[in-house]
Each structure stands twice: as structure tokens, then as C-alpha cells.
């Protein structure tokens, strides 16, 4: 199976482009850096190119079959959604949220600074 693929590369006829808008170009760059680290499992069958245009993260996908394009796209969108949600943990936002929690009467009581000993 693998040998058939390497003989002649199949044409990547199926393409699509996603444009994802962010508040700032820095945010788009952050997501680009976080998502361009991992290699595609079979780059000769499906791959993606990422770039930033203004406030947009632009992702261009290519695949040898339509089904593969869909799965690559779907895996990528899951990761984008996850990366987007991490903006809620930006320092200022998180500190604010932690402080709000602290001031609530039902704030969880914790026992930090404990050294575990068995």
C-alpha cells in the first residue's frame, strides 16, 4: 500500500481556505505559532499552510481526496476552537476571574503549602 503511494504522488486536487478573524494580529500570530508545530501525519495525502493576513489567520488545505480534506479541516477547527478558548486564561482576565471568585462567600477553601508525606 505504502509503495503504491510513493511511486507516483497523487494530485492534491481538493482545496479549501479558511479565514479566521481575531481581535488583533498578535492573537492571530499566537494561534499560528501554536498550531504550526505539529506535523501532518501524511503530508503527501493532505496538508495545510498557515499564514496571518491582518487580523486573520488564514489556513489553506489541500488533499488528494475530498473525504481527507474534510477530516483534516475538522481536526484543525477543533484545535482552533481550543486555542481560542485559551484566550480566557490570559493573565489579566484570569487574575480578574480569580479575584471575583475569591470575593464570593462560597469561595473554595484550600490547604496549599502542604508537603505530601507518605
Amino acid at each position, binding site marked *: 500500500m505504502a509503495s503504491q503511494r510513493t511511486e507516483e504522488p497523487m494530485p492534491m486536487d481538493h482545496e479549501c481556505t479558511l479565514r479566521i478573524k481575531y481581535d488583533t494580529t498578535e492573537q492571530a500570530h499566537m494561534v499560528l505559532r501554536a498550531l504550526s508545530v505539529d506535523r501532518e501525519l501524511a503530508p503527501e495525502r493532505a496538508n495545510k499552510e498557515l499564514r496571518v493576513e491582518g487580523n486573520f489567520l488564514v489556513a489553506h488545505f489541500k488533499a488528494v481526496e475530498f473525504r481527507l480534506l474534510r477530516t483534516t479541516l475538522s481536526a484543525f477547527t477543533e484545535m482552533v476552537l*481550543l486555542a481560542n*478558548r485559551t484566550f480566557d486564561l490570559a493573565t489579566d482576565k484570569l487574575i480578574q476571574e480569580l479575584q471575583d471568585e475569591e470575593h464570593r462567600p462560597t469561595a473554595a477553601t*484550600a490547604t496549599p503549602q502542604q508537603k505530601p508525606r507518605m
Partner: protein
Amino acid sequence: MEPTPPHSDAAPRKRARTDGKRCIAIGFEGSANKVGVGIVADDGTIFANVRKTYITPPGTGFLPQETARHHREHVLELAKQAFKIAHMTPNDIDVICFTKGPGIAAPLVSVAVVVRMLAQLWGKPIVGVNHCVAHIEMGRVVTRARNPVVLYVSGGNTQVIAFAQGRYRIFGETIDIAVGNCLDRFARILQLPNEPAPGWQIEQLAKQGKQFIELPYVVKGMDVSFSGLLSNISKRATEMLAAETATKADLCFSLQETVFAMLVEVTERAMAHCHSSEVLIVGGVACNERLQDMMRAMVTQRGGSLCAMDERFCIDNGAMIAYTGLLSFLQGQVTPIEQTTCTQRYRTDEVPITWRAGEVDEPGD
């Protein structure tokens, strides 16, 4: 929002905080069906260690994509919880650590994406951590074991390890499936619940076992094998349960006695080889009290001591990743964001244990 500063790993320089404060790390773990976040200091103090386990219905195991989805759903909430429990904010953190491998790719990558984002958002360096080394270091710091022979037993790994010449060397290991995988899969055959853990269910049932059923005992030199044993008991279980010649409890008891005896045998040989008197058991299976009792009996006979922990630190957790990453970080090591890839295969002995570089090799001194 500062992007991650560029790092050079050319000439690592040892780090220490100049303000006299302890170095603090946050660690993210997600190599299997648990996702965890821990916050620790360089002296081993654990400020927070929260985790969530992906539990599937009885008779089923966890699959990569579903597990990754579970981790994506919970990882951010766990991070918030960790800060809350630790009474800290991202400003208190010096370094962000994550599991680079070994483990299952999809869940590993999901957690790594979060770590890469947070490193940029918080302007903190990243350290990639070997999951197996993290189990060992967590065990050492919690039990105060100095230089033990380590039995690392979990759903994905089974290794007998000792420190020699700057690395954790593998003296013996499974040649097929991990012991935890063998137990988990047998639990599936018996349709036992996966909550809180399939191995825990087997351990409880085994306590009521009355009859020992002889099973294949497969030790090959320093290595062990569980896959043939699992096939054997799986096939016979169906027949014996139908004919009522054995109960589920008898089967669980016999399985535990057999596989644990194999593990104790190779661990004893490693102790003799290394002239060591300390044994540390780590990994998810390490919280099995029957395994601890059998190991303790062997170690005591040799005049040694057993170091074991409970499920908070045995089972995959974020604190072990944070602590081990911190040990590396203090030696000047960081992982540039472009190198924060995950790897399914990452052997324990691939990692130079720089923080123990000055130590004498011989265990048990």
C-alpha cells in the same frame, strides 16, 4: 501580550531566582485517559494537583479521538481550578511544563496546543517532559527515596529501572503489552466498571478470591510478557464462569497473583544486580495494595525498604510533570515553541538526567 522569548539551548546556564523565592512550575499532563494540571515549587511542595479521568462504559476502552476531546473540554477549567487551589496567578509561575511523550498522540497534542498558547499569553518558557521520568521523579520527591530500583507499572508501560551513568536505564520491561493494559482488558472481559479504574475493580474482587488457578508465568530473563497470559485467562474465564468452576473473584485473584509475582521476580533480580536496598513503585498499577504487599515482603527479606505512594501521585498527574520540568529548567533547559512537538515513543533512557549528573551511580549507597 508578549510572545514567547526566543530560547537558546546551546549553552544551558543554571538558573536560580535572585529574589530568594522558590521557582514555581505549572505542569500539564494528558498522555492517556487522564488530564491533569499541577502547580509545584522546586523543593517539591505541591500547591495544586487536579485531574479528570475519561471513563468509558464497562466493557469498553478509551479511544484516541474521544480521549482528546475529553481533554480539550476539561484542560482549561482544570488550569483555573489549580490556580484557585494554589491561591496563585500566572504571574507567580516561572515555567510551563507539558508531557512530550510517550503516550497517545491525539490527547498529547491537544494539551500541547494549550501549553503553547499559554506560554505566549503569559510570556513564560516551556519545558517538554518525558512522562516516565516524571513518574520516577515524583516518586523520589514524595517518598524521599534516594536512589531506588524503580518498578514503573501502568496501563501503557512496564519497566524495571535503575539510575546509572546519568540516565534512568531500563533493566527489564514488557516485551508486549503493559501489565496495566493486561488488567484493564481483563476487566473489560468481565464487564467490570471502569470507574474509578478497572484495575481498582480487579483489586477489590481479588480480595474475595478463594481458588488459585494456575496461569502462564512468563518471565524471560529480565523481561516479562503479558499478552499470552491475557489470551489464556480470557479464553478460560468464559468457559470456567459458564461451567461455574471458578468465580470472577477467583480469576481476578489468580491473575493478580501471577502478574505481580512476575514483577516482583524481575525487580528482585534488578536489586541484586545493582546492590540496591530501595524499591520505588510508580505508575497507575503502583497504587495496587496487593502489589505493594508482595513487593514489601520481598524487599523486607532482603533487608531493604519499599517506597510506595497512593493514587494522588501514582496515577498520571500534572504535578509530576511540573516538578520534573522544573528540575530540567533549573539546569537551564527550555523547549523552544517550535520544538514542542509530541512523540508517542519516547524511551525513559533517552533523557539525560542532568539534575543528577553529579551523583554516584551505584544505587543503594
